[in-house]
Protein backbone atom coordinates (compact mmCIF):
# COMPACT_ATOMS: atom_id res chain seq x y z
CA UNK A 1 0.00 0.00 0.00
CA UNK A 2 2.75 2.42 1.00
CA UNK A 3 4.55 1.76 -2.24
CA UNK A 4 1.46 2.32 -4.29
CA UNK A 5 1.20 5.83 -2.92
CA UNK A 6 4.80 6.52 -3.85
CA UNK A 7 4.19 5.77 -7.50
CA UNK A 8 2.59 8.96 -8.74
CA UNK A 9 -0.18 8.71 -11.27
CA UNK A 10 0.21 11.10 -14.16
CA UNK A 11 -2.69 13.60 -14.26
CA UNK A 12 -3.62 12.35 -17.70
CA UNK A 13 -4.00 8.80 -16.39
CA UNK A 14 -5.95 9.89 -13.31
CA UNK A 15 -8.48 11.73 -15.52
CA UNK A 16 -9.43 8.63 -17.52
CA UNK A 17 -12.74 6.96 -16.72
CA UNK A 18 -12.17 3.92 -14.54
CA UNK A 19 -12.26 0.67 -16.44
CA UNK A 20 -10.37 2.13 -19.41
CA UNK A 21 -7.94 -0.58 -20.44
CA UNK A 22 -4.31 0.50 -20.10
CA UNK A 23 -3.45 -1.02 -23.45
CA UNK A 24 -5.75 -1.81 -26.34
CA UNK A 25 -4.81 -3.34 -29.67
CA UNK A 26 -7.41 -3.21 -32.40
CA UNK A 27 -6.96 -5.54 -35.35
CA UNK A 28 -3.20 -5.00 -35.39
CA UNK A 29 -1.15 -6.61 -38.14
CA UNK A 30 2.61 -6.40 -38.62
CA UNK A 31 4.30 -7.59 -41.78
CA UNK A 32 8.02 -7.83 -42.43
CA UNK A 33 8.39 -8.18 -46.17
CA UNK A 34 6.50 -11.43 -46.73
CA UNK A 35 6.44 -12.61 -43.09
CA UNK A 36 3.25 -11.85 -41.17
CA UNK A 37 4.64 -11.55 -37.63
CA UNK A 38 1.39 -10.39 -36.00
CA UNK A 39 -1.88 -11.24 -37.69
CA UNK A 40 -5.02 -9.17 -37.08
CA UNK A 41 -4.60 -9.24 -33.32
CA UNK A 42 -7.00 -7.57 -30.90
CA UNK A 43 -6.33 -7.35 -27.20
CA UNK A 44 -7.29 -5.38 -24.10
CA UNK A 45 -5.16 -5.26 -21.00
CA UNK A 46 -6.79 -4.18 -17.78
CA UNK A 47 -5.14 -1.56 -15.61
CA UNK A 48 -2.93 -2.94 -12.87
CA UNK A 49 -2.90 -6.50 -14.16
CA UNK A 50 0.02 -8.83 -14.72
CA UNK A 51 -0.44 -9.97 -18.28
CA UNK A 52 1.62 -12.61 -20.07
CA UNK A 53 2.08 -13.20 -23.78
CA UNK A 54 2.94 -16.87 -24.06
CA UNK A 55 3.89 -18.78 -27.16
CA UNK A 56 6.62 -20.63 -29.02
CA UNK A 57 9.60 -18.81 -30.49
CA UNK A 58 8.71 -16.84 -33.60
CA UNK A 59 4.98 -16.52 -32.86
CA UNK A 60 5.11 -12.73 -32.74
CA UNK A 61 5.40 -11.94 -29.01
CA UNK A 62 8.36 -9.60 -29.27
CA UNK A 63 6.88 -7.84 -32.27
CA UNK A 64 3.64 -7.23 -30.36
CA UNK A 65 5.60 -5.83 -27.42
CA UNK A 66 7.75 -3.63 -29.66
CA UNK A 67 4.67 -2.15 -31.28
CA UNK A 68 3.31 -1.21 -27.85
CA UNK A 69 6.68 0.31 -26.93
CA UNK A 70 6.88 2.25 -30.19
CA UNK A 71 9.88 0.44 -31.69
CA UNK A 72 7.79 -0.89 -34.55
CA UNK A 73 4.76 0.62 -36.25
CA UNK A 74 1.82 -1.66 -37.10
CA UNK A 75 1.27 -2.35 -40.80
CA UNK A 76 -2.45 -2.13 -40.05
CA UNK A 77 -4.63 -1.58 -36.99
CA UNK A 78 -4.56 0.78 -34.05
CA UNK A 79 -2.93 0.77 -30.63
CA UNK A 80 -4.27 2.75 -27.68
CA UNK A 81 -2.53 3.55 -24.42
CA UNK A 82 -5.43 4.46 -22.15
CA UNK A 83 -7.72 6.51 -24.38
CA UNK A 84 -4.87 7.85 -26.57
CA UNK A 85 -4.13 6.44 -29.96
CA UNK A 86 -0.35 6.19 -30.24
CA UNK A 87 0.27 5.57 -33.94
CA UNK A 88 3.41 7.40 -34.98
CA UNK A 89 4.33 8.39 -31.43
CA UNK A 90 8.05 7.68 -30.89
CA UNK A 91 9.13 5.54 -27.93
CA UNK A 92 10.47 8.50 -25.97
CA UNK A 93 7.04 10.11 -25.94
CA UNK A 94 5.16 6.98 -24.83
CA UNK A 95 4.22 6.45 -21.23
CA UNK A 96 5.72 2.96 -21.37
CA UNK A 97 9.02 1.47 -20.23
CA UNK A 98 10.76 -1.72 -21.22
CA UNK A 99 12.96 -4.30 -19.53
CA UNK A 100 15.05 -5.64 -22.38
CA UNK A 101 16.03 -9.26 -22.68
CA UNK A 102 19.74 -8.36 -22.68
CA UNK A 103 19.02 -5.74 -19.94
CA UNK A 104 20.72 -3.09 -22.14
CA UNK A 105 22.18 -1.31 -19.11
CA UNK A 106 24.41 1.60 -20.11
CA UNK A 107 27.92 0.21 -19.58
CA UNK A 108 29.58 3.60 -19.11
CA UNK A 109 27.17 4.77 -16.41
CA UNK A 110 27.03 3.81 -12.74
CA UNK A 111 24.04 1.91 -11.40
CA UNK A 112 22.74 5.16 -9.90
CA UNK A 113 23.01 6.98 -13.22
CA UNK A 114 21.45 4.07 -15.07
CA UNK A 115 18.40 4.29 -12.83
CA UNK A 116 18.44 8.11 -12.95
CA UNK A 117 18.59 8.19 -16.78
CA UNK A 118 14.86 8.48 -17.40
CA UNK A 119 14.29 10.99 -14.60
CA UNK A 120 17.11 13.22 -15.84
CA UNK A 121 15.60 13.27 -19.33
CA UNK A 122 12.41 14.56 -17.75
CA UNK A 123 14.32 17.28 -15.91
CA UNK A 124 14.23 15.85 -12.39
CA UNK A 125 17.24 17.15 -10.46
CA UNK A 126 18.94 17.31 -7.08
CA UNK A 127 17.41 15.87 -3.93
CA UNK A 128 14.22 14.80 -5.64
CA UNK A 129 16.19 12.73 -8.15
CA UNK A 130 18.45 11.22 -5.53
CA UNK A 131 15.49 10.34 -3.32
CA UNK A 132 13.58 8.61 -6.10
CA UNK A 133 16.56 6.65 -7.38
CA UNK A 134 17.54 5.46 -3.94
CA UNK A 135 14.00 4.49 -3.09
CA UNK A 136 13.87 2.43 -6.25
CA UNK A 137 17.24 0.78 -5.62
CA UNK A 138 15.94 -0.06 -2.17
CA UNK A 139 12.80 -1.59 -3.67
CA UNK A 140 14.87 -3.96 -5.83
CA UNK A 141 17.18 -4.70 -2.88
CA UNK A 142 20.21 -2.99 -4.34
CA UNK A 143 20.71 -0.05 -2.00
CA UNK A 144 24.42 0.60 -1.65
CA UNK A 145 25.20 -0.54 -5.19
CA UNK A 146 24.67 2.89 -6.75
CA UNK A 147 28.32 3.66 -7.41
CA UNK A 148 29.14 0.40 -9.16
CA UNK A 149 29.23 -0.17 -12.89
CA UNK A 150 26.87 -2.71 -14.51
CA UNK A 151 29.73 -5.10 -15.31
CA UNK A 152 30.48 -5.44 -11.60
CA UNK A 153 27.05 -6.95 -10.93
CA UNK A 154 25.80 -10.50 -11.33
CA UNK A 155 23.15 -11.37 -13.90
CA UNK A 156 20.36 -11.36 -11.33
CA UNK A 157 21.46 -7.99 -9.97
CA UNK A 158 21.67 -6.49 -13.45
CA UNK A 159 18.17 -7.76 -14.03
CA UNK A 160 16.95 -5.89 -10.95
CA UNK A 161 18.73 -2.70 -12.08
CA UNK A 162 16.90 -2.98 -15.39
CA UNK A 163 13.61 -3.28 -13.47
CA UNK A 164 14.45 -0.29 -11.28
CA UNK A 165 15.55 1.81 -14.26
CA UNK A 166 12.20 1.23 -15.94
CA UNK A 167 9.91 1.42 -12.90
CA UNK A 168 11.40 4.63 -11.49
CA UNK A 169 9.61 6.48 -14.30
CA UNK A 170 6.28 5.11 -13.02
CA UNK A 171 5.11 4.25 -16.52
CA UNK A 172 1.55 3.35 -17.40
CA UNK A 173 2.79 -0.04 -18.55
CA UNK A 174 5.99 -2.00 -18.02
CA UNK A 175 7.01 -4.27 -20.89
CA UNK A 176 9.22 -7.27 -20.13
CA UNK A 177 10.65 -9.32 -23.02
CA UNK A 178 11.82 -12.71 -21.79
CA UNK A 179 13.53 -10.92 -18.90
CA UNK A 180 14.63 -14.11 -17.16
CA UNK A 181 15.97 -15.91 -20.21
CA UNK A 182 19.64 -15.41 -19.34
CA UNK A 183 19.38 -16.59 -15.73
CA UNK A 184 19.94 -20.12 -14.47
CA UNK A 185 16.96 -22.16 -13.35
CA UNK A 186 17.19 -21.51 -9.60
CA UNK A 187 17.63 -17.76 -9.98
CA UNK A 188 14.89 -17.71 -12.59
CA UNK A 189 12.43 -19.23 -10.11
CA UNK A 190 13.42 -16.68 -7.46
CA UNK A 191 13.09 -13.77 -9.88
CA UNK A 192 9.66 -14.99 -11.01
CA UNK A 193 8.35 -14.60 -7.49
CA UNK A 194 10.29 -11.37 -6.95
CA UNK A 195 8.85 -9.71 -10.05
CA UNK A 196 5.35 -10.90 -9.22
CA UNK A 197 5.61 -9.42 -5.74
CA UNK A 198 7.06 -6.21 -7.17
CA UNK A 199 4.15 -5.87 -9.58
CA UNK A 200 1.70 -6.40 -6.76
CA UNK A 201 3.45 -3.72 -4.69
CA UNK A 202 3.75 -1.01 -7.33
CA UNK A 203 0.38 -1.72 -8.97
CA UNK A 204 1.67 -0.92 -12.47
CA UNK A 205 0.42 -2.94 -15.45
CA UNK A 206 3.06 -5.48 -16.51
CA UNK A 207 3.13 -7.19 -19.89
CA UNK A 208 5.48 -10.13 -19.73
CA UNK A 209 6.63 -12.05 -22.79
CA UNK A 210 7.79 -15.65 -22.36
CA UNK A 211 7.88 -18.99 -24.12
CA UNK A 212 7.91 -20.83 -20.77
CA UNK A 213 4.39 -21.93 -19.80
CA UNK A 214 5.35 -22.54 -16.20
CA UNK A 215 6.76 -19.04 -15.90
CA UNK A 216 3.62 -17.51 -17.40
CA UNK A 217 1.37 -19.52 -15.08
CA UNK A 218 3.46 -18.68 -12.01
CA UNK A 219 3.51 -14.96 -12.65
CA UNK A 220 0.52 -13.78 -14.63
CA UNK A 221 -3.10 -13.02 -13.73
CA UNK A 222 -4.08 -13.36 -17.35
CA UNK A 223 -2.31 -15.11 -20.21
CA UNK A 224 -2.72 -14.78 -23.97
CA UNK A 225 -1.43 -17.88 -25.72
CA UNK A 226 -0.08 -16.87 -29.12
CA UNK A 227 0.51 -18.99 -32.18
CA UNK A 228 1.51 -17.77 -35.63
CA UNK A 229 0.77 -14.13 -34.92
CA UNK A 230 -2.68 -14.77 -33.47
CA UNK A 231 -4.08 -15.24 -30.00
CA UNK A 232 -5.28 -18.83 -29.63
CA UNK A 233 -6.85 -18.34 -26.23
CA UNK A 234 -6.89 -15.74 -23.49
CA UNK A 235 -7.64 -16.45 -19.86
CA UNK A 236 -6.41 -17.11 -16.37
CA UNK A 237 -3.77 -19.80 -15.85
CA UNK A 238 -6.37 -22.29 -14.60
CA UNK A 239 -8.74 -21.60 -17.52
CA UNK A 240 -6.01 -22.32 -19.99
CA UNK A 241 -4.78 -25.46 -18.28
CA UNK A 242 -8.10 -27.00 -17.24
CA UNK A 243 -10.22 -25.80 -20.16
CA UNK A 244 -8.06 -25.30 -23.23
CA UNK A 245 -10.12 -24.55 -26.31
CA UNK A 246 -7.65 -25.64 -28.96
CA UNK A 247 -5.28 -28.56 -29.35
CA UNK A 248 -2.42 -26.06 -29.57
CA UNK A 249 -3.20 -24.54 -26.17
CA UNK A 250 -3.78 -27.97 -24.62
CA UNK A 251 -0.42 -29.15 -25.95
CA UNK A 252 1.53 -26.00 -25.14
CA UNK A 253 0.51 -25.92 -21.48
CA UNK A 254 1.30 -29.56 -20.75
CA UNK A 255 0.58 -33.15 -21.66
CA UNK A 256 -3.00 -34.11 -22.42
CA UNK A 257 -4.71 -37.34 -23.44
CA UNK A 258 -7.21 -37.04 -26.24
CA UNK A 259 -9.95 -39.61 -27.00
CA UNK A 260 -11.95 -39.08 -30.18
CA UNK A 261 -15.65 -39.96 -30.35
CA UNK A 262 -19.18 -38.94 -31.32
CA UNK A 263 -21.40 -36.75 -29.14
CA UNK A 264 -24.23 -39.02 -27.93
CA UNK A 265 -26.02 -36.85 -25.36
CA UNK A 266 -25.97 -33.71 -23.24
CA UNK A 267 -22.90 -34.92 -21.39
CA UNK A 268 -21.83 -38.14 -23.09
CA UNK A 269 -19.49 -39.08 -25.88
CA UNK A 270 -19.41 -42.50 -27.53
CA UNK A 271 -15.96 -43.76 -28.41
CA UNK A 272 -15.17 -45.83 -31.49
CA UNK A 273 -15.96 -49.23 -29.97
CA UNK A 274 -19.26 -48.14 -28.44
CA UNK A 275 -18.00 -47.35 -24.93
CA UNK A 276 -19.76 -44.27 -23.63
CA UNK A 277 -17.89 -41.84 -21.39
CA UNK A 278 -19.30 -38.90 -19.48
CA UNK A 279 -17.93 -35.41 -19.93
CA UNK A 280 -18.69 -31.93 -18.62
CA UNK A 281 -21.96 -30.70 -20.11
CA UNK A 282 -20.79 -27.08 -20.18
CA UNK A 283 -17.63 -28.09 -22.01
CA UNK A 284 -19.70 -29.89 -24.62
CA UNK A 285 -21.89 -26.82 -24.87
CA UNK A 286 -24.45 -28.20 -27.28
CA UNK A 287 -21.89 -29.55 -29.76
CA UNK A 288 -22.70 -32.48 -31.96
CA UNK A 289 -20.73 -34.73 -34.29
CA UNK A 290 -17.16 -35.73 -33.69
CA UNK A 291 -15.16 -34.26 -30.81
CA UNK A 292 -11.96 -34.99 -28.95
CA UNK A 293 -12.24 -35.47 -25.18
CA UNK A 294 -9.16 -34.28 -23.30
CA UNK A 295 -7.95 -35.37 -19.85
CA UNK A 296 -4.77 -34.17 -18.14
CA UNK A 297 -2.50 -37.04 -16.95
CA UNK A 298 -2.73 -36.17 -13.25
CA UNK A 299 -6.56 -36.24 -13.36
CA UNK A 300 -6.51 -39.97 -14.18
CA UNK A 301 -6.39 -42.42 -11.27
CA UNK A 302 -4.84 -45.87 -11.51
CA UNK A 303 -8.01 -47.47 -10.01
CA UNK A 304 -11.74 -47.65 -10.67
CA UNK A 305 -12.92 -45.08 -8.15
CA UNK A 306 -14.13 -42.52 -10.71
CA UNK A 307 -17.11 -42.83 -13.11
CA UNK A 308 -15.20 -43.07 -16.40
CA UNK A 309 -13.07 -46.20 -16.56
CA UNK A 310 -10.73 -47.74 -19.09
CA UNK A 311 -8.64 -50.93 -19.11
CA UNK A 312 -4.99 -50.92 -20.10
CA UNK A 313 -1.53 -52.41 -19.77
CA UNK A 314 1.45 -50.47 -18.36
CA UNK A 315 4.09 -50.04 -21.05
CA UNK A 316 6.53 -47.58 -19.53
CA UNK A 317 7.24 -46.10 -16.14
CA UNK A 318 9.27 -43.02 -15.27
CA UNK A 319 9.97 -42.07 -11.67
CA UNK A 320 10.17 -38.27 -11.38
CA UNK A 321 10.48 -37.96 -7.59
CA UNK A 322 7.37 -36.06 -6.66
CA UNK A 323 5.37 -38.26 -9.02
CA UNK A 324 5.59 -41.30 -11.27
CA UNK A 325 4.56 -41.17 -14.91
CA UNK A 326 3.10 -44.21 -16.68
CA UNK A 327 2.41 -44.81 -20.33
CA UNK A 328 -0.58 -47.14 -20.45
CA UNK A 329 -1.68 -48.87 -23.63
CA UNK A 330 -5.46 -48.90 -24.09
CA UNK A 331 -7.85 -49.69 -26.90
CA UNK A 332 -7.82 -46.00 -27.81
CA UNK A 333 -4.08 -45.61 -27.93
CA UNK A 334 -1.49 -44.77 -25.31
CA UNK A 335 -2.64 -42.82 -22.27
CA UNK A 336 -0.26 -40.90 -20.04
CA UNK A 337 -0.99 -41.07 -16.33
CA UNK A 338 0.80 -39.19 -13.56
CA UNK A 339 0.49 -40.50 -10.02
CA UNK A 340 1.62 -38.41 -7.06
CA UNK A 341 4.08 -40.23 -4.80
CA UNK A 342 2.38 -38.92 -1.67
CA UNK A 343 2.34 -42.16 0.39
CA UNK A 344 5.46 -43.72 1.79
CA UNK A 345 6.06 -47.24 0.53
CA UNK A 346 3.32 -47.20 -2.09
CA UNK A 347 3.93 -50.01 -4.55
CA UNK A 348 4.44 -48.76 -8.09
CA UNK A 349 2.91 -50.50 -11.05
CA UNK A 350 5.38 -52.26 -13.34
CA UNK A 351 5.47 -52.52 -17.11
CA UNK A 352 3.19 -55.39 -18.13
CA UNK A 353 0.72 -54.88 -15.24
CA UNK A 354 -2.95 -54.69 -16.13
CA UNK A 355 -4.51 -51.53 -14.82
CA UNK A 356 -7.90 -49.87 -14.59
CA UNK A 357 -7.82 -46.12 -15.21
CA UNK A 358 -10.62 -43.81 -14.16
CA UNK A 359 -11.39 -40.11 -14.07
CA UNK A 360 -14.03 -37.62 -13.06
CA UNK A 361 -16.20 -36.21 -15.90
CA UNK A 362 -15.60 -32.77 -14.38
CA UNK A 363 -11.91 -33.10 -15.26
CA UNK A 364 -12.47 -33.31 -19.02
CA UNK A 365 -12.29 -30.70 -21.74
CA UNK A 366 -13.55 -30.81 -25.30
CA UNK A 367 -11.63 -29.94 -28.48
CA UNK A 368 -12.33 -30.18 -32.16
CA UNK A 369 -11.40 -33.66 -33.35
CA UNK A 370 -7.95 -33.91 -34.81
CA UNK A 371 -7.09 -35.39 -38.13
CA UNK A 372 -6.62 -39.13 -37.52
CA UNK A 373 -4.14 -39.55 -34.64
CA UNK A 374 -0.56 -39.99 -35.76
Amino acid at each position, binding site marked *: MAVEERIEQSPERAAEPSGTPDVRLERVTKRFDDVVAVDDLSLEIERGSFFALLGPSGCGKTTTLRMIGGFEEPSAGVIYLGDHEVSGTPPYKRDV*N*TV*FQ*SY*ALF*PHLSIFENVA*FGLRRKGTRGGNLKGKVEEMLDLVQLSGYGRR*KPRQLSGGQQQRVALARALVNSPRVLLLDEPL*GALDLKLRKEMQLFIKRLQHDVGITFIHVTHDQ*EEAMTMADRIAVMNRGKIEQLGGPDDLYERPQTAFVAGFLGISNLLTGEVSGRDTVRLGDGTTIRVRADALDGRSGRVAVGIRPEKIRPDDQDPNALQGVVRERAYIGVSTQYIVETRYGNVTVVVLNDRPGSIPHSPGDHLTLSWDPEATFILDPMEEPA
Partner: protein
Amino acid sequence: METRGTRIGLGVATVAVIAFLWLPLLLIMAYAFNSSTIQSWPISGFTLHWFREAWHDPEVRRSVELSLKVGLAATAIALVLGTAAAAAIYRFRFFGREAVSFLLLLPIALPGIITGMALNSFFNFGGVQLSMWTIVAGHATFCVVIVYNNVLARLRRSSPSLIEASMDLGADGWQTFRWVIWPALSTALVAGGLLAFALSFDEVIVTTFTAGAQTTLPIVNAIVFVVILATVIPVTIAQRLTGDTGVLRRGAAASKAAAAATGGGAV
Protein backbone atom coordinates in the same frame (compact mmCIF):
# COMPACT_ATOMS: atom_id res chain seq x y z
CA MET B 1 44.22 -29.15 -29.76
CA GLU B 2 47.57 -27.45 -29.81
CA THR B 3 50.55 -29.56 -29.00
CA ARG B 4 53.75 -28.51 -27.32
CA GLY B 5 55.52 -28.67 -30.69
CA THR B 6 53.17 -26.30 -32.48
CA ARG B 7 53.30 -23.94 -29.52
CA ILE B 8 57.08 -23.72 -29.68
CA GLY B 9 56.98 -23.41 -33.47
CA LEU B 10 54.48 -20.57 -33.30
CA GLY B 11 56.54 -18.85 -30.62
CA VAL B 12 59.67 -19.00 -32.76
CA ALA B 13 57.80 -17.73 -35.80
CA THR B 14 56.37 -14.81 -33.83
CA VAL B 15 59.78 -13.81 -32.52
CA ALA B 16 61.25 -14.07 -36.03
CA VAL B 17 58.57 -11.84 -37.53
CA ILE B 18 58.93 -9.24 -34.80
CA ALA B 19 62.71 -9.28 -35.20
CA PHE B 20 62.38 -8.91 -38.97
CA LEU B 21 60.12 -5.90 -38.52
CA TRP B 22 61.95 -4.20 -35.68
CA LEU B 23 65.68 -4.93 -36.00
CA PRO B 24 66.26 -2.53 -38.94
CA LEU B 25 64.31 0.15 -37.12
CA LEU B 26 66.24 -0.32 -33.90
CA LEU B 27 69.49 -0.27 -35.85
CA ILE B 28 68.63 3.05 -37.51
CA MET B 29 67.48 4.46 -34.19
CA ALA B 30 70.85 3.52 -32.72
CA TYR B 31 72.72 5.13 -35.65
CA ALA B 32 70.97 8.41 -34.86
CA PHE B 33 73.27 8.64 -31.84
CA ASN B 34 76.40 7.61 -33.76
CA SER B 35 79.23 10.17 -33.53
CA SER B 36 80.75 8.95 -36.82
CA THR B 37 79.19 9.63 -40.22
CA ILE B 38 80.07 6.13 -41.35
CA GLN B 39 77.32 3.64 -40.55
CA SER B 40 79.02 0.63 -39.09
CA TRP B 41 78.32 -1.56 -36.11
CA PRO B 42 79.09 -1.11 -33.28
CA ILE B 43 78.59 2.67 -33.24
CA SER B 44 81.80 4.56 -32.50
CA GLY B 45 80.48 6.96 -29.87
CA PHE B 46 77.35 8.54 -28.44
CA THR B 47 76.24 12.03 -29.56
CA LEU B 48 73.11 14.17 -29.82
CA HIS B 49 74.83 16.25 -32.53
CA TRP B 50 72.60 15.02 -35.38
CA PHE B 51 69.45 15.94 -33.52
CA ARG B 52 70.79 19.49 -33.10
CA GLU B 53 71.68 19.63 -36.80
CA ALA B 54 68.27 18.40 -37.82
CA TRP B 55 66.57 20.91 -35.53
CA HIS B 56 68.40 23.83 -37.14
CA ASP B 57 68.10 22.59 -40.73
CA PRO B 58 65.47 24.82 -42.48
CA GLU B 59 64.58 22.12 -44.97
CA VAL B 60 63.89 19.62 -42.23
CA ARG B 61 61.86 22.20 -40.39
CA ARG B 62 59.76 22.95 -43.40
CA SER B 63 58.99 19.32 -44.06
CA VAL B 64 58.13 18.60 -40.43
CA GLU B 65 55.85 21.60 -40.40
CA LEU B 66 54.20 20.42 -43.59
CA SER B 67 53.82 16.91 -42.15
CA LEU B 68 52.11 18.29 -39.09
CA LYS B 69 49.72 20.41 -41.08
CA VAL B 70 48.93 17.66 -43.55
CA GLY B 71 48.54 15.09 -40.78
CA LEU B 72 46.14 17.29 -38.80
CA ALA B 73 44.08 18.27 -41.83
CA ALA B 74 43.85 14.72 -43.17
CA THR B 75 42.91 13.44 -39.71
CA ALA B 76 40.19 16.05 -39.33
CA ILE B 77 38.70 15.18 -42.69
CA ALA B 78 38.97 11.47 -41.93
CA LEU B 79 37.17 11.88 -38.58
CA VAL B 80 34.19 13.54 -40.20
CA LEU B 81 33.93 11.41 -43.33
CA GLY B 82 34.99 8.12 -41.70
CA THR B 83 32.44 8.47 -38.91
CA ALA B 84 29.68 9.45 -41.29
CA ALA B 85 30.45 6.50 -43.57
CA ALA B 86 30.58 4.05 -40.66
CA ALA B 87 27.28 5.36 -39.28
CA ALA B 88 25.62 5.02 -42.67
CA ILE B 89 26.91 1.50 -43.26
CA TYR B 90 25.95 0.40 -39.75
CA ARG B 91 22.54 2.00 -39.60
CA PHE B 92 21.06 1.66 -43.07
CA ARG B 93 20.58 -1.19 -45.46
CA PHE B 94 20.78 0.32 -48.91
CA PHE B 95 21.45 -0.76 -52.43
CA GLY B 96 25.20 -1.01 -53.05
CA ARG B 97 26.05 -1.13 -49.35
CA GLU B 98 28.63 -3.88 -49.77
CA ALA B 99 30.16 -2.05 -52.73
CA VAL B 100 30.61 1.13 -50.71
CA SER B 101 32.29 -0.82 -47.95
CA PHE B 102 34.63 -2.42 -50.49
CA LEU B 103 35.47 0.86 -52.20
CA LEU B 104 36.32 2.47 -48.87
CA LEU B 105 38.69 -0.34 -47.95
CA LEU B 106 40.41 -0.57 -51.33
CA PRO B 107 42.95 2.29 -50.89
CA ILE B 108 44.65 0.39 -48.05
CA ALA B 109 45.27 -2.60 -50.27
CA LEU B 110 46.52 -0.59 -53.26
CA PRO B 111 50.16 0.46 -53.21
CA GLY B 112 50.47 4.12 -52.22
CA ILE B 113 52.17 4.94 -55.49
CA ILE B 114 49.13 3.83 -57.49
CA THR B 115 46.81 6.03 -55.44
CA GLY B 116 49.32 8.85 -55.81
CA MET B 117 49.56 8.51 -59.59
CA ALA B 118 45.81 8.26 -59.92
CA LEU B 119 45.28 11.38 -57.84
CA ASN B 120 48.02 13.19 -59.76
CA SER B 121 46.41 12.62 -63.13
CA PHE B 122 43.03 13.44 -61.62
CA PHE B 123 44.34 16.80 -60.37
CA ASN B 124 46.05 17.47 -63.71
CA PHE B 125 42.87 16.63 -65.52
CA GLY B 126 40.86 18.98 -63.32
CA GLY B 127 43.48 21.70 -63.61
CA VAL B 128 44.15 21.68 -59.86
CA GLN B 129 47.56 23.01 -58.81
CA LEU B 130 49.53 20.60 -56.65
CA SER B 131 49.70 22.05 -53.14
CA MET B 132 49.45 21.08 -49.52
CA TRP B 133 45.76 20.45 -50.06
CA THR B 134 46.34 17.93 -52.80
CA ILE B 135 48.61 16.05 -50.39
CA VAL B 136 45.89 16.26 -47.75
CA ALA B 137 43.42 14.77 -50.22
CA GLY B 138 45.81 11.93 -50.95
CA HIS B 139 46.32 11.17 -47.27
CA ALA B 140 42.64 11.45 -46.52
CA THR B 141 42.05 8.43 -48.79
CA PHE B 142 43.71 6.05 -46.35
CA CYS B 143 43.02 8.03 -43.16
CA VAL B 144 39.27 7.81 -43.78
CA VAL B 145 39.56 4.03 -43.88
CA ILE B 146 41.30 3.91 -40.51
CA VAL B 147 38.62 5.97 -38.78
CA TYR B 148 35.86 4.16 -40.64
CA ASN B 149 37.14 0.77 -39.53
CA ASN B 150 37.56 1.80 -35.91
CA VAL B 151 34.15 3.40 -35.61
CA LEU B 152 32.36 0.62 -37.46
CA ALA B 153 33.99 -2.03 -35.26
CA ARG B 154 32.88 -0.15 -32.17
CA LEU B 155 29.36 0.31 -33.45
CA ARG B 156 29.10 -3.37 -34.30
CA ARG B 157 30.32 -4.34 -30.87
CA SER B 158 27.91 -2.14 -28.94
CA SER B 159 24.42 -3.47 -28.57
CA PRO B 160 21.69 -1.77 -30.64
CA SER B 161 19.36 -2.25 -27.71
CA LEU B 162 21.31 0.46 -25.84
CA ILE B 163 19.91 3.01 -28.28
CA GLU B 164 16.44 1.55 -27.88
CA ALA B 165 16.81 1.57 -24.10
CA SER B 166 17.75 5.22 -24.24
CA MET B 167 14.73 6.12 -26.37
CA ASP B 168 12.57 3.96 -24.12
CA LEU B 169 13.69 6.08 -21.16
CA GLY B 170 12.61 9.31 -22.79
CA ALA B 171 15.73 10.42 -24.65
CA ASP B 172 15.14 11.84 -28.13
CA GLY B 173 17.61 11.45 -30.99
CA TRP B 174 19.99 14.18 -29.89
CA GLN B 175 19.93 13.15 -26.20
CA THR B 176 20.57 9.55 -27.17
CA PHE B 177 23.57 10.65 -29.21
CA ARG B 178 24.86 12.87 -26.40
CA TRP B 179 24.41 10.46 -23.50
CA VAL B 180 24.72 6.98 -25.04
CA ILE B 181 26.29 6.90 -28.50
CA TRP B 182 28.96 9.54 -27.97
CA PRO B 183 30.38 8.00 -24.76
CA ALA B 184 30.60 4.65 -26.54
CA LEU B 185 32.23 6.09 -29.67
CA SER B 186 34.57 8.68 -28.23
CA THR B 187 37.50 6.36 -27.51
CA ALA B 188 37.13 4.75 -30.93
CA LEU B 189 37.28 8.20 -32.52
CA VAL B 190 40.36 9.21 -30.55
CA ALA B 191 42.05 5.92 -31.41
CA GLY B 192 41.12 6.19 -35.09
CA GLY B 193 42.33 9.79 -35.18
CA LEU B 194 45.66 8.93 -33.58
CA LEU B 195 46.26 6.06 -35.98
CA ALA B 196 45.31 8.17 -38.97
CA PHE B 197 47.62 10.95 -37.83
CA ALA B 198 50.51 8.56 -37.25
CA LEU B 199 50.11 7.11 -40.74
CA SER B 200 49.89 10.48 -42.42
CA PHE B 201 52.66 12.16 -40.43
CA ASP B 202 55.49 9.85 -41.41
CA GLU B 203 54.41 9.72 -45.04
CA VAL B 204 55.51 13.27 -45.92
CA ILE B 205 58.84 13.04 -44.15
CA VAL B 206 59.63 9.68 -45.66
CA THR B 207 58.75 10.99 -49.12
CA THR B 208 60.86 14.12 -48.77
CA PHE B 209 63.91 12.34 -47.51
CA THR B 210 63.87 9.33 -49.74
CA ALA B 211 63.22 11.48 -52.82
CA GLY B 212 65.15 14.69 -52.03
CA ALA B 213 68.19 13.09 -50.36
CA GLN B 214 70.61 16.01 -50.28
CA THR B 215 70.55 15.80 -46.53
CA THR B 216 73.42 13.92 -44.93
CA LEU B 217 72.63 10.45 -43.72
CA PRO B 218 73.05 10.87 -39.98
CA ILE B 219 70.54 13.72 -39.97
CA VAL B 220 68.07 11.41 -41.66
CA ASN B 221 68.69 8.87 -38.92
CA ALA B 222 67.83 11.46 -36.30
CA ILE B 223 64.64 12.35 -38.18
CA VAL B 224 63.72 8.70 -38.54
CA PHE B 225 64.16 8.30 -34.82
CA VAL B 226 61.67 11.09 -34.16
CA VAL B 227 59.25 9.83 -36.77
CA ILE B 228 59.27 6.34 -35.30
CA LEU B 229 58.48 7.76 -31.89
CA ALA B 230 55.78 9.97 -33.38
CA THR B 231 54.24 6.84 -34.86
CA VAL B 232 54.74 4.34 -32.07
CA ILE B 233 53.36 6.57 -29.32
CA PRO B 234 49.97 7.34 -30.92
CA VAL B 235 49.59 3.76 -32.09
CA THR B 236 50.25 2.49 -28.57
CA ILE B 237 47.72 4.88 -27.10
CA ALA B 238 45.21 3.92 -29.79
CA GLN B 239 45.72 0.23 -28.97
CA ARG B 240 45.02 0.88 -25.32
CA LEU B 241 41.90 2.85 -26.12
CA THR B 242 40.43 0.21 -28.40
CA GLY B 243 41.37 -2.54 -25.95
CA ASP B 244 39.50 -0.80 -23.15
CA THR B 245 36.07 -1.85 -24.29
CA GLY B 246 35.53 -4.81 -22.03
CA VAL B 247 32.21 -3.31 -21.07
CA LEU B 248 30.79 -3.33 -24.54
CA ARG B 249 32.14 -6.75 -25.27
CA ARG B 250 30.58 -8.03 -22.07
CA GLY B 251 27.28 -6.54 -23.11
CA ALA B 252 27.40 -8.41 -26.36
CA ALA B 253 28.31 -11.65 -24.58
CA ALA B 254 25.41 -11.23 -22.18
CA SER B 255 22.89 -10.82 -24.97
CA LYS B 256 24.34 -13.79 -26.77
CA ALA B 257 24.01 -15.88 -23.61
CA ALA B 258 20.46 -14.65 -23.23
CA ALA B 259 19.62 -15.65 -26.77
CA ALA B 260 21.15 -19.09 -26.24
CA ALA B 261 19.30 -19.62 -23.00
CA THR B 262 15.90 -18.69 -24.39
CA GLY B 263 16.54 -20.68 -27.53
CA GLY B 264 17.14 -23.86 -25.60
CA GLY B 265 15.05 -23.29 -22.49
CA ALA B 266 11.67 -24.43 -23.78
CA VAL B 267 10.26 -27.63 -22.29
